[in-house]
């Protein structure tokens, strides 16, 4: 079977967001901005991914997996453009849309592993897990996590710092937050409080997210 067209993928994506994540029963053709006889819709109907009843498009059981993976690719692409490439705002969205259609045949798995199996997109929406995520979960908890993922009283070794700018990096290093040091989390709310050696520090979640901890095995 041929690849789905980009426009068809976008319809699946909107359907998923509105009906599976949202509380709509099907979507009006008008809110999807498609015509009943448009090519991309026919493409989806032909594969039995969707059906159209009374002017509403419904996602069929057969289309769910494909829709889920489309959403997953889109949100992984967002992580890539916004977090790694640092492209933000409108430009970031556009680039993410361009990228998502390239993430096929295992490229999404590689990206997902590179990003350490993220669970949410930069806007906070869930990224549907792929097989790679399930496999990683089977192997036990991921070894290296941001400080924000630790539980109070948990200890670990500082693995690396992912500070986005030099000044932040220096702040962390000057507090003795250096790879190889042992760190224990004291409390998470309202600020992150942790101990390195005999000193205690408080940081907000922006900084906490940039300290990566290796959990002991």
């Amino acid at each position: 079977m041929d690849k789905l067209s980009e426009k068809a993928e976008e319809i699946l994506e909107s359907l998923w967001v509105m009906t599976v994540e949202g509380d709509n029963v099907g979507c009006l053709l008008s809110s999807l901005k498609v015509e009943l006889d448009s090519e991309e819709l026919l493409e989806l109907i032909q594969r039995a991914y969707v059906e159209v009843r009374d002017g509403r498009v419904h996602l069929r059981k057969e289309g769910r997996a494909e829709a889920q993976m489309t959403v997953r690719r889109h949100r992984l692409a967002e992580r890539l453009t916004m977090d790694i490439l640092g492209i933000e705002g409108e430009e970031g969205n556009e680039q993410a849309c361009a990228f998502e259609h390239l993430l096929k045949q295992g490229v999404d798995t590689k990206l997902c592993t590179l990003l350490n199996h993220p669970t949410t997109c930069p806007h906070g929406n869930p990224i549907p897990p792929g097989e790679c995520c399930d496999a990683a979960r089977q192997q036990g908890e991921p070894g290296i996590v941001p400080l924000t993922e630790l539980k109070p009283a948990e200890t670990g070794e500082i693995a690396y710092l992912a500070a986005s700018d030099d000044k932040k990096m220096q702040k962390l290093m000057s507090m003795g937050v250096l790879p190889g040091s042992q760190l224990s989390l004291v409390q998470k709310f309202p600020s992150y409080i942790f101990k390195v050696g005999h000193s205690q520090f408080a940081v907000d979640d922006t900084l906490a997210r940039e300290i990566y901890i290796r959990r002991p095995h």
Partner: protein
Amino acid sequence: MSEQQSSSPKVVLVGNPNVGKSVLFNVLTGAYTTVSNYPGTSVEVSRGHCTIDDQRYEILDTPGMYSMMPITDEERVARQILLKEDPHAVIHIIDARNIDRMLPITLQLIEAGLPVVLVVNILDEAKRLGMELDLELLQDHLGIPVIGAVMKRRIGLHELRRAIADYAMVPHKPFAYAADLEADINKLVRLIHGDYRLSRRATCLLLMQKDDDIEALVEKNESESNFLQLKDGLREIIFKRRADLNLQISLERKKVCKRMLDGVVTQIIKDVEPLGEKLSKLMMNPWTGTPILLLVVYFGLYKFVGGFGAGTLVDFLEGNLFENYVNPPVINFAEKYLTQRWLYELTVGEYGLWTLGIRYAVALVLPIVGAFFLIFSLLEDTGYFPRLALLVDRLFKRIGLSGRAVIPIVLGFGCDTMATLVTRTLETRRERIIATMLLALAIPCSAQLGVILGLLSAAPNALAVWSIFLLLVFLLIGFLAARLLPGESPVFYMEIPPLRLPQLRNVVVKTLTRMQSYFVEILPLFLFASVILWAGKMTGTLSTVVGALSPVVKALGLPVEVTTAFVFGFFRRDFGAAGLYDLQSSGLLNITQLTVAAVTLTLFVPCVAQFLVMLKERGVKTALGIFVFVTLMAFSSGWFLNKFLLATGLLA
């Protein structure tokens, strides 16, 4: 530097914040600087003297620094001293408990070719944690004098004085880093020829870390061709190491430190949680921390400052001492000898120097401010403020500030002028502007607070309306400012020092120092304000201004007499409040009017002193902008509150 050759040898104190640097300064010099258990309160450099073996030494205390690469302005000040002065000795003081974290700075100082003495302080608390330190071994490893100390009990002071007197600089073998890093450093070292006070090796390392100040210095000292060549080499190295240069240098230093500390520290595991630690956890947990904050506010601010300071103390000083014993002879004297009307008015008249100036400052303001500073110093010494900072950080982020801003805001309840000065410790310009504005608008100083609490305490409802309304304005304006002002949102990070039992002497001296600087700074302004008001009264300007402002006041539903209080309010915030006090005593204001007047006055423009500091710290444009905004905001809020209270009949 010819002017320095003639003066005494210099001894510079450096170290992280909160390791006992200022305490060391005090025991060395006998002078007093404000010692605090809060990172980053000493912005300026204190100088003092000490004499050892008939030789006089000048001692310089620097703001806390975390590394040779400055991040904040305070650290820049500290580094600047090391670059400019020619010290006889540099005393690096560290906290024994965190020796592994602080030793890298010692390395950097030694590497810079400075004559370093290492003081390992707070040994007693380290011992309590089960740490044993072999400092002789550390001295062998480092090759510089190392002194163990508990400075607040003067342990180690004698040894330190000897070390300063006997200091003989020996050239130090550099600590070697990884081979590839060494190669890069050497390549650069060969390219510079100037004299930089810091060693060439250290200078090159700072260049590699893109230190702009150092680069500017090098550019000035090297020939042009040399500098261009250096720049080329530098660019290449920086590009090659773009991913992790800073990190690699830090890690290399950590490795060296590990070598230095090998066999020095023995840790005996102790598993008892000290009482302080438990209390600290309660303070940092929002569920228990919030009630603790409320208790502190109730007992510290309301009961002690409001009740004891503004009530008992003021009654005694103003009502008893001045009214019965001090004022009569002064007025008698004036009536007898100062018979000219203008002179009489200038001294003991309605707005006279004595009546409005000295009596107000001494009998009314000083007890209130003093009570506040006592509580503030007490809390500061326990280490409560950093815990409060992390508690409110999330809320403060909403109003464009970080938890760090809690210090200037709390201090504002004592004296907004001082607090505006302290906004310097905030990291971004945006934060400083927001904090300055909120201080000018919605934070009443203790003098004003005292009078207003006294004024409204008879009507608890009015007090509640006043507090809630001010809180709302504070949050609303902060929230809008955070939305509208451009710039990056602040990042919060802060060291949480252990809780300490405050030392009585330290607290008392600190309170007195603060009161003294308040008095020295404020009394002239009180007198200045009196003269202005007196001149205004004599020339009739005052009544013109009052006349011009009175329609505005009437629009708020207030009697015309209140206008005088508003005009006064600009000269001293509390003058205004005290003016209301007189009006209320004579029955001119009902409860609604009193509340509206109190709210408007609290929001209304800061006093002269605060405005001058705003001009100095924030510049003319920003300061004037804030001034205009605050004035408009105060009167429109007053107008709104009046309509609201009348419509709802809330206080009727």
